[in-house]
C-alpha cells in the first residue's frame, strides 16, 4: 500500500512538472499553430536563472526562505522575458512561413543548451534548495518527498490561474476564440498578435517555473533538462488536446503516473516506453484526444 501511495504522489509530482511545461506549449500551439521546439529552452533558462540566483549571485536571493522564493521568481521572470523576446524577434516575423518558423524554434532549442553548456559546463550542477523541501513526510505509511508537494501545489496554482485568465478576462476570451478561429477574431477587429505575445509570455513563465521547480525535483540543473522534458510535454499536449489547459492537466497526471508505475513494476526505463504505448493506445481508441480537440 505504501509503495502505491509513494508511486502515486511522485507520479503526480512528475505530472505536475510536465503540466507546467505542456500548458504553455498547448496554448501556443492551439492559438498560434506554432510548434515551439524552443519551449524546453525556456524551461532551461528558468532553471539556470533560479540556480544562478539561489547560488548567491543575486542580492537578496538564496537557497532558503524568502531568498529562495526570490530566486524562483527571478528564474521565472528571466524565462518569461526570453519567451517575449523569442516571440517578438523570431516567431512574429515568420508567421507566414511556418516551415522556417519550426526550424527557427528547433535552432533556438539547440542553441540555448549549447550556450548554457559553454557558460556553465555540460555537467549537472547541484540545485541549492531549502532544507525544508529536501525532506520527506509520512502519508499512509509512505515517506513522500516534500518537493513533490511543492510541484503539485505550483501546478494547481498555475492551472487555477490559467482557468481564471481564460474564463474571466478579455485577453483570455480572445485566446479561447483564437484557438477556434484566429482569422475570425481578427475580422472582429481584435489585434490577435497581442494575444500571441501574451500567450508566449504565459507559456514561458509556466515553463520557466517548471524549470526552477524541476531543479528541486531532480536536485540539479543541466543544459539538456529542458529538451528531455519537452518530449513528454509534447506527448501531453497531443493527448490532452491542442489549446486545452484542462486536457493538458489530465494528460500530464496520466503520463506521470504511468511512467512512475511502469518504471517500478517493470524495469527502470520502461516507463518512457509505457508513455509512448499509452499515447498510441489513446490515439487509436480516441483519435481526437482526451478532450476531443486534437488538431
Amino acid at each position, binding site marked *: 500500500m505504501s509503495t502505491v501511495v509513494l508511486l502515486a504522489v511522485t507520479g503526480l509530482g512528475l505530472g505536475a512538472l510536465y503540466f507546467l511545461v505542456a500548458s504553455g506549449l498547448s496554448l501556443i500551439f492551439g492559438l498560434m499553430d506554432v510548434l515551439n521546439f524552443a519551449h524546453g529552452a525556456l524551461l532551461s533558462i528558468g532553471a539556470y536563472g533560479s540556480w544562478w540566483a539561489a547560488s548567491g549571485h543575486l542580492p537578496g536571493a538564496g537557497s532558503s526562505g524568502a531568498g529562495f522564493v526570490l530566486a524562483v521568481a527571478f528564474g521565472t521572470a528571466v524565462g518569461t522575458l526570453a519567451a517575449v523576446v523569442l516571440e517578438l524577434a523570431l516567431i512574429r516575423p515568420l508567421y507566414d512561413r511556418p516551415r522556417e518558423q519550426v526550424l527557427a524554434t528547433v535552432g533556438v532549442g539547440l542553441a540555448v543548451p549549447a550556450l548554457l553548456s559553454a557558460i556553465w559546463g555540460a555537467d549537472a550542477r547541484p540545485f541549492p534548495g531549502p532544507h525544508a523541501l529536501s525532506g520527506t513526510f509520512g502519508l499512509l505509511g509512505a515517506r513522500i518527498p516534500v518537493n513533490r508537494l511543492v510541484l503539485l501545489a505550483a501546478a494547481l496554482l498555475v492551472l487555477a490561474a490559467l482557468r481564471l485568465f481564460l474564463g474571466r478576462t*478579455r485577453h483570455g*476570451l*480572445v485566446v*479561447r*476564440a483564437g*484557438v*477556434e*478561429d484566429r*482569422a*475570425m*477574431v*481578427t*475580422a*472582429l*477587429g*481584435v*489585434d*490577435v498578435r497581442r494575444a500571441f505575445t501574451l500567450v508566449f509570455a504565459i507559456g514561458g513563465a509556466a515553463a520557466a517555473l517548471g524549470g526552477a521547480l524541476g531543479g528541486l525535483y531532480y536536485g540539479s540543473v543541466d543544459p539538456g533538462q529542458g529538451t528531455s522534458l519537452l518530449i513528454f510535454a509534447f506527448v501531453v499536449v497531443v493527448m490532452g488536446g491542442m489549446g486545452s489547459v484542462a486536457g493538458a492537466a489530465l494528460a500530464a497526471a496520466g503520463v506521470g503516473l504511468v511512467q512512475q508505475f511502469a518504471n517500478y513494476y517493470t524495469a527502470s526505463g520502461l516507463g518512457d516506453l509505457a508513455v509512448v504505448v499509452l499515447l498510441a493506445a489513446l490515439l487509436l481508441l480516441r483519435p481526437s484526444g482526451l478532450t476531443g480537440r486534437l488538431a
Partner: protein
Amino acid sequence: MTTASEPLLSVRGLRVVLGGRHILHGVDLDVAPAGVTALLGRNGAGKTTTVRGVLGLVPRTGSVRFAGTETVRLATHDLVRRGIGYAPEDRGVFAGLTVAENLRLAERPGAGTPDYPLVHELFPELKARARQSAGTLSGGQQQMVAIARTLLNGNRLIIADEPTKGLAPRVVTEVALVLERAARAVPVLLVEQNLALVRRLADSCVVLADGRTAHRGPAADLLADTGATRRLLGVGSNSPAHEEADA
C-alpha cells in the same frame, strides 16, 4: 473623408492568388454610402474571396479605399476597427464560447458603448440564450449572432456574406427584415444567391464572373432583364429556387 456622392468602399483591380492559383483577376466594385449593394455571381465566381480580399483575410493586391483612405496595406483588425462589421459565409461563430461571449468578443474597447439595446431588440432570443454555448444553437440562431456582432459597434459598413444560406424560409424572412432595418442606418455589402432577397433589399449590384467584374449597375435593372440574369448568374430572375424571401 468621403462626400455624399463618393463610394464608401471603392475596390479597384483586386487580385488574389491562393496556392499558386489566380482566384481574382482584378475585381472592381463600389459600395454606395447608403443602401444595399449586392455582390452576385455564380458559385465559384469569387464573391467570398472578394470579401476576404477586401478585409485582408487573404493576401491581395490592388486598391481598397474605405471612407476615402487606402487600406490595402492595413492589417485586418486595423481596417475592421475603422468601422466594418463582417458576418462571414460560415457565420464565424465560436462554438466553444457562449452567445454572450461571442458578442463580447466583438466589442471594441475604447470605441464607444456597445449597442446591446439594439441587438436585444432585434434578437430577443439572443438575450434569453446568453449563457448557451453557441455551438448548440441552430443555424438560424448562429446567423443571428453573426449579424448581431456587426450591429454592436455603430459600424459604417456591414458586410454580410450569404446570410440566408442554408436557413429555413421563416428565418430567411427574419434575417431579411433585420438587414432591411440595418440598411436604413448603415450601408450594406450583401453577398447573396437568393435573388428574391436581392430584389427586396438591394439598390445596386456588382456581378462577378471567373474572378472579374462582369457587370455593375442598379439591381432592379439587372433583375428585370431575364437574359442578363441567365447569362451572368445562370438563373432566371424569377426562378422558384430563388424566391424564398418573398414570403
